[in-house]
């Protein structure tokens, strides 16, 4: 358990119950997921029952309870992207990475998720990797995009 990091995160927030989501955001950013031991520690520290934290962590898509890959790929499945064939892009990604959507590759390099509209309908179909948005993606381009993020 990385106590030092958790304590540092907790010290940024005043000890109020309302800060739970903020704390979870920071923990998610640091670990790229919400580890159980850390959540239990936070529960004791800020005096919120672990069941309530677990409830919140499960409710929001932003939080993940399983480790995520270093590179998070989000395929937009909004209406415009769907019409422009985001399904094909998703299938191509699933085949290339050998995982299903919502899963993470074994080497923890990539995780694949579908998202609803990201507001880039002019670029449909769009794929977001980490902070970069790739627009007008064709199934052929998938390999090239992935190779950018491979070490």
């Amino acid at each position, binding site marked *: 358990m990385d106590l030092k990091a958790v304590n540092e995160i907790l010290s940024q927030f005043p000890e109020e119950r309302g800060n739970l989501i903020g704390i979870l955001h920071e923990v998610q950013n640091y670990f790229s997921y919400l580890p*159980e031991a850390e959540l239990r520690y936070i529960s004791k520290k800020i005096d919120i*029952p*672990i*069941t*309530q934290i*677990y*409830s919140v962590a*499960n*409710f929001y898509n932003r939080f993940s309870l399983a480790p995520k890959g270093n590179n998070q790929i989000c395929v937009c499945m909004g209406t415009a992207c769907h019409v422009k064939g985001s399904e094909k892009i998703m299938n191509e990604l699933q085949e290339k990475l050998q995982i299903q959507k919502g899963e993470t590759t074994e080497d923890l390099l990539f995780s694949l998720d579908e998202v609803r509209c990201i507001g880039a309908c002019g670029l449909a179909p769009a794929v977001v990797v980490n902070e970069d948005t790739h627009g007008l993606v064709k199934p052929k381009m998938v390999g090239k995009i992935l190779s950018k993020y491979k070490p």
Partner: protein
Amino acid sequence: MAKMVNLIINGKKIKATAGSTVLEAAQKEGIYIPTLCHHNALDPEGTCRLCIAEFSGSIRDSVRISCIQEVKEGLIVETETKRINKSRRLILELFLGRAPEATAVINLAAKYGVTKSRFMTGESNDCILCGRCVRVCRDKIGVHALCFINRGPARKITTDFERLSEYCIGCGACAHVCPTGAIKVEDKGDQRKIFTWEQVTARFTLERCEHCHKPFAPKRYLELINKKAYNPKGLELVDYICPECFKKHDRVSDKRREGALRKAVNKWSVPR
């Protein structure tokens, strides 16, 4: 004296205590409003939506749920109109689609003429997500062993990290308040098991009664009673006596029994 307000439910003039809900006021007057999530001992949460009624008079004409709506001077409530019963039948149909084997749901649906559901999921889960168990565990027992997780169709009730709960004290209050019997408590010998439809939430070894030597309650439950009920009065629970033995000793006036009672009570509540 508490302030009273006047309102009309189904054409009947009613006086109700200010701050109470319309459902409570109706129940007091013997007016039936169906509900699955309301429990007299718990704060209302308005999850089952069956207690809907048409409101007018001192508030905007609207359909609201009566278990959360507070009584108000000049309120007019209609609980069994055509519009309400239509919505109610739909809600019951949805419940029936989810829990086609739960007796409470089947009976209530039959009362409103719903025997079939268009929303069968192909699965059967007695839990209707009313949240009574979560509320009793959180608000009354105060151990926070149960919670809701996920959203939408995936929403369900479980323990933290969906494993055997280390916070559960095995009191069985969740099973007691469950309207459909989705959470069950099973005592076999001196073992207690609490389980929901898919998951065992807790297992306990029951402590034996000092008198009849029958297993009756988990240790952590008795410890909580000790902490919540006895310790604030400066008392300490020393020996475990089951409720039956306690009552038995209480009723019989035989002197010897009385002696045993006093002893038992003294044992039960020895000042610290």
